[in-house]
């Protein structure tokens, strides 16, 4: 049984979706990150504008690009623009 990808949503992304974490099923060989992002927008259309200004991480590392493969059991994070301080 394949473990899902855990998609962690922060700040405005979390508020728009109403959930902190979304489970995402991917095939055994994984998916390019851009397909996860596109899938999120299809499932949560209001998230679109936020996704276009967000950064993405796989297992706590920033993605080099959206072609990076996301595999079953990975953690995937959506970071809207930062606002600390």
């Amino acid at each position: 049984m394949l473990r899902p990808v855990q998609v962690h949503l922060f700040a405005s992304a979390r508020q728009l979706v109403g959930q902190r974490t979304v489970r995402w099923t991917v095939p055994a060989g994984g998916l390019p990150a851009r397909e996860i992002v596109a899938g999120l927008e299809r499932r949560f259309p209001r998230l679109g504008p936020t996704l276009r200004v967000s950064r993405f991480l796989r297992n706590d590392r920033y993605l080099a690009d959206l072609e990076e493969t996301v595999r079953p059991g990975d953690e995937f994070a959506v970071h809207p623009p930062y606002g600390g301080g």
Partner: protein
Amino acid sequence: MVVRLSRRSLSLAAVERRLRTARSGGVVLFAGRVRPDRADGRTTVALLYEADRAPALDRLRALEAEARRRFGARDVVLYHRLGRVRVGEVSVVVAAACAHRAQAFDAARYLIDELKATVPIWKEERARPARRPPRRPGRRAGRSAGSGRAR
């Protein structure tokens, strides 16, 4: 070096203890506090801060290393509060100890600018409406024991 994300409030005395490197001539410290005024006329009562903790700590440690490399910082403090921080409280402290004051100013400025732009921390406002009539000093006189503060 101190890099910390914490729900607990921070005193400058604690920062001072961390910056006792005798060879540093200058220490510059920036403390950011929650301000009450908002552009829309409402009044902020608190900010709620959240972080993506592991990558945030990684970025803070990278900023510390960069401050050492670029400005010769000998000691660095990077401290950000998480959770609810009320108006007037300190939400963030950065400090850099360097041999000379110009470096220390540049390092502290770099650290707070980069922290705000590149560390995965976010804030959410808790505000109350504008022009709320002042509350009477006789407290809890009516039926409501509510504090009048947004949650």
